[in-house]
């Protein structure tokens, strides 16, 4: 299984090498903006998503990441700029609308209904049925089998698809949601902070599934505030701050350190180091922050 996966990855990486950009982006935003009353939540954001590529959206709390995904996922409508799917301009009026256009969103906290069995969650909203008119009934066994198979293909080994999904770990739940989106033919997969509430090991697991989704040809939008998670898997990086874009890079144009520096902002880090020193913070931590500051300044 493991060797197989590596094989597949090297294969795909070779294929990716010439960077064959499709002339038309799978999804593209051009100068998109959104106001809530007199509050500007998002202004002038431009980004693109392609097949088999991961576009990372980075930003701190309140940077406008949630607003951005809500627009793409159809929960809110943008009021400036354009959103294009395969070159065609669209404005989604509901999550269903976005889903029908092939955009699936995996939310950090509301990806699943905890008390429901895994297989019911997997097929929720797109149940398989047979029969006529009002007598349509669920193909329970078929759905259970598919759930089990799809999750196994994602490398998730489950004892029982009948158990409530709330019993799974946070990482596993994310993976079920990702597997679900992949199975239902999503072309664009939006992942909203999938690693935010997870430990190091679990985060690694989720990152691996992001790559698997990419290798299956999906365009992935990976929202995070952690550059260490974004950099290893991302192909493009959009940095948001206070509702506007402060940078949009291809992977070849930026390093992890630069990305971290851009994210944190050198001045803020210096201020933090100073503050910690004044508070009598632990020496090691202060040194670490100071080293970071030096690092940031060097890259500027």
């Amino acid at each position, binding site marked *: 299984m493991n060797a197989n996966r590596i094989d597949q990855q090297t294969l795909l990486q070779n294929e990716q090498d010439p960077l064959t950009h499709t002339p038309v982006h799978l999804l593209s935003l051009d100068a998109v903006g959104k106001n809530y009353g007199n509050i500007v939540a998002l202004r002038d954001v431009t980004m693109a998503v392609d097949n088999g590529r991961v576009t990372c959206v980075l930003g701190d709390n309140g940077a406008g990441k949630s607003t951005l995904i809500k627009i793409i996922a159809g929960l809110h409508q943008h009021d400036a700029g354009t959103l294009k799917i395969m070159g065609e301009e669209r404005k989604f009026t509901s999550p269903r609308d976005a889903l029908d256009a092939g955009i699936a969103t995996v*939310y950090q906290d509301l990806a699943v209904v905890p008390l429901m069995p895994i297989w019911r969650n997997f097929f929720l909203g797109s149940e398989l049925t047979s029969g006529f008119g009002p007598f349509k009934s669920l193909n329970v066994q078929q759905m259970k089998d598919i759930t089990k198979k799809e999750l196994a293909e994602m490398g998730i080994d489950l004892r029982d698809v009948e158990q409530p999904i709330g019993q799974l770990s946070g990482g596993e739940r994310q993976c079920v949601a990702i597997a679900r989106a992949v199975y239902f033919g999503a072309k664009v997969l939006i992942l909203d902070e999938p690693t935010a509430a997870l430990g190091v090991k679990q985060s690694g697991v989720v990152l691996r599934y992001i790559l698997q989704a990419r290798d299956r040809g999906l365009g992935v939008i990976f929202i995070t505030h952690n550059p260490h998670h974004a950099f290893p898997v991302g192909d493009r990086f959009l940095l948001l701050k206070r509702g506007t874009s402060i940078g949009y890079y291809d992977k070849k144009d930026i390093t992890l350190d630069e990305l971290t520096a851009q994210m944190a902002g050198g001045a803020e880090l210096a201020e933090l180091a100073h503050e910690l020193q004044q508070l009598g913070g632990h020496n090691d931590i202060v040194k670490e922050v100071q080293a970071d500051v030096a690092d940031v300044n060097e890259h500027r």
Partner: protein
Amino acid sequence: MTQTLTRPPVVDERVGRRNPLQKLLGRPEVGALVGAIVLFVFFASVSQTFIQPNAFATVLYGSSTIGIMAVGVSLLMIGGEFDLSTGVAVISSALTASMFSWYFSVNVWVGVVLALVVSLGIGYINGWILMKTKLPSFIVTLATFLMLTGLNLGLTRLIGGGVSSPSISTMDGFASAQAVFSSSVNIGGVEVKNTVFIWIVLVAVASWVLLRTKVGNWIFAVGGDENAARAVGVPVKATKIGLFMAVGFCGWVLGMHNLFAFDAVQSGEGVGNEFLYIIAAVIGGCLLTGGYGSAVGGAVGAFIFGMANKGIVYAQWNPDWFKFFLGLMLLLATIVNLIVKRRAELK
């Protein structure tokens, strides 16, 4: 712990490892079922008459009048809402049928059909206001409850000039409607009311819908996590409004039974019954916060209610004690449900 260590690594081998008893105990209605058996044994031992077929038919009839409504109320509770207007809505439905047929002197079936429209309409309005305002269902249906109570009394006096609807027993279609909504079937010398069969059919249909259809999946989802359900494309609004209308339908069935069991309805009746339906659903293992429960559970809850209600009479105790027992049972049943559920989930 040792069990975990000895588990073979093959995936499918592990599926059967979950103790079937634990799996059974994980079902929502098990707590209630245990309670029902205990209660049955208890009353059977204190009263000789309780286990006689005729008495048992009476217990079943009593259970069915609660159980028919408990079907709808259970589904609604699984869907994450409740309805305090059910008790008086039953009477509204019965009054609509009788007053309309009487006032316009038409076949009672016209009134029966109109009552169905009114009942579904009340459910629709409840659901629509709820979804539109996003107020808690407690407030919305409490308002409906008060308004319907007032309308029942006010309109009955305005149209019929009394506190009860005029008798419709001599009108066209009364006999056939009575045969449908309130008749008895003789089974081995025991008269069993047909509401018992209507109840069983409703429970069967509700269980099928809940466990084997798309809509059932949606009901669990909107009750379990409304936002998650909406995000994956479940029509939350339609599902919830549909649930309120299903409660309306059950109210219509019971309302028609109440009307045709006699030939008139008291306009002030029904107040307080909404709690009995909710109690039946809760005793039956439906989670008050939604997302968990079963139609069978609601039926078992109603059966417990019926047994306690009639059992006290057969045991020749003072019926004054009934409410106390009901409260005690509600408390015990919910605690048992909680413990059973936790045990099963911890494994």
